[in-house]
């Protein structure tokens, strides 16, 4: 299967829309450091999605994978049973999170090709382990996804070569941290918004994780085989 064939219709139509608007040229001008990276595109080996961290595109696709997962989760949440019975506050939070993650997905889906990279294919999330009629199941999953997102971005910032992209990653991770705090507060309360289980009480430092650890943590929700390459260590 070629790279092109592996893409969903949704991805193709998004790229088409993007191209018609001519946004790509603007973006390429804004971030010239990433021009011409043909050899650095993600590699599809059979069914495996390869995230090659030898360029920033690998890092961006890593973020794109996680954002896809988050968005797919909140989309399903807002269409299923628990959400219908949730308090107004929790509804508002969960629907805001759906919107924010959609923005992150759409942005990365546009930015990666605009900068000359190749998007990984759309992942196939598997939330069969989540009971979408259960408040505990929904909110604990949301908590895990948000904390994992924070740890992933915190760990990946150092890999980014382009400081403009580093700043953009920073713009996203603080929003994920805001999410994590809100979900933890409505779910667990007390000091959990920045609990000692995620913010080291001695150093005041938030969670950080390697891509391998993040994929291991998120793997239960992803059916795709994701392989990491050239992760700095």
């Amino acid at each position, binding site marked *: 299967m070629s790279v092109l064939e592996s893409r969903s219709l949704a991805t193709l139509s998004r790229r088409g829309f993007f191209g018609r608007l001519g946004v790509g040229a603007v*973006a390429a001008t804004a971030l010239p450091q990433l021009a011409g990276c043909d050899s650095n595109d993600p590699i599809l080996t059979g069914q495996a999605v390869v995230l090659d961290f030898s360029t920033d595109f690998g890092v961006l696709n890593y973020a794109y994978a996680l954002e896809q997962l988050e968005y797919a989760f909140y989309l399903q949440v807002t269409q299923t049973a628990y959400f219908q019975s949730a308090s107004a506050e929790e509804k508002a939070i969960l629907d805001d999170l759906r919107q*924010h993650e959609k*923005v992150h997905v759409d942005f990365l889906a546009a930015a990666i090709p*605009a900068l000359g990279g190749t998007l990984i294919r759309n992942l196939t999330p598997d939330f069969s382990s989540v009971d979408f009629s259960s408040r505990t199941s929904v909110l604990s999953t949301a908590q895990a996804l948000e904390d994992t997102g924070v740890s992933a971005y915190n760990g990946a910032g150092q890999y980014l070569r382009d400081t403009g992209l580093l700043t*953009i990653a920073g713009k996203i991770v603080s929003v994920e941290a805001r999410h994590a705090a809100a979900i933890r507060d409505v779910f667990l309360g007390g000091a959990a918004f920045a609990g000692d289980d995620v913010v080291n009480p001695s150093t*005041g430092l938030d969670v950080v994780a390697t891509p391998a650890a993040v994929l291991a943590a998120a793997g239960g929700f992803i059916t795709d085989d994701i392989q990491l390459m050239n992760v700095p260590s």
Partner: protein
Amino acid sequence: MKTVFDILAPEAAQALESRRMALVTLGKISAGFALASVPAIGLANRAYAQTSGDPISVLNFALTLEYLEDAYYRMGLDSGIVPTGLPQTYVQQVSKHETAHVALLTSAITGAGGTPVQFDDDDFDFTAGGFDPFSDYNLFLALAQGFEDTGVRAYKGQAANLSTGGGSLNSTLTTALQIHSVEARHASQIRRLRGQQGWITQNNHTLGAAFDGIYAGEGNISQGGIDVSTITDIGADGITEAFDELLTSDQVLAIAGPFIMA
């Protein structure tokens, strides 16, 4: 790019006009805040007014903000203005982190061969301008929100200065990012305690006009040269909520400087 003087000038003028009107109410916080902007001009002499972007300067800039936050929460807790129960639980957790950040950054700067800035609680005046966050819990939370949202933006603005080119491990940058996201957790919680959303919509806020600088630019919908409104079906409010914006060190100085008397 705006300089610290561009930001301060109109606020300072407004402050002189409204100095006597500064009252201990949320509605009047703008007058007090603007008044407090005046002494910030003197800050350029201090080491923490970093402009060079070298890592030690960046860390001292961050350390200055952490000292300010640390003093604020400890003084707030000591004042008795924070209600017992959950409010104290929240504020104690935040305070604990700010104290830890001061120690961590001090150690990091020393370890990197630099000289860490040092402040005493007396170096800060959170009552400058005629309002007193330590006698009004709502005011205390309002100023806390301002400090936390500023802190998030301040760290974000320095991330690029801590980059060593990417593609390899960079513990200084990673540490800064780990503090950055903690500030964001704090900001979310304090905003929600005030009945706000945990995230920032456009450049909206409920802190009074003199706090506009804290949220300046948050209405941005263009990222990396891409007008995000053209590539998503989510509206502009959601787009601005999904990306927190940065502040330059000059912008941060204009916001935080007024509370630093040294």
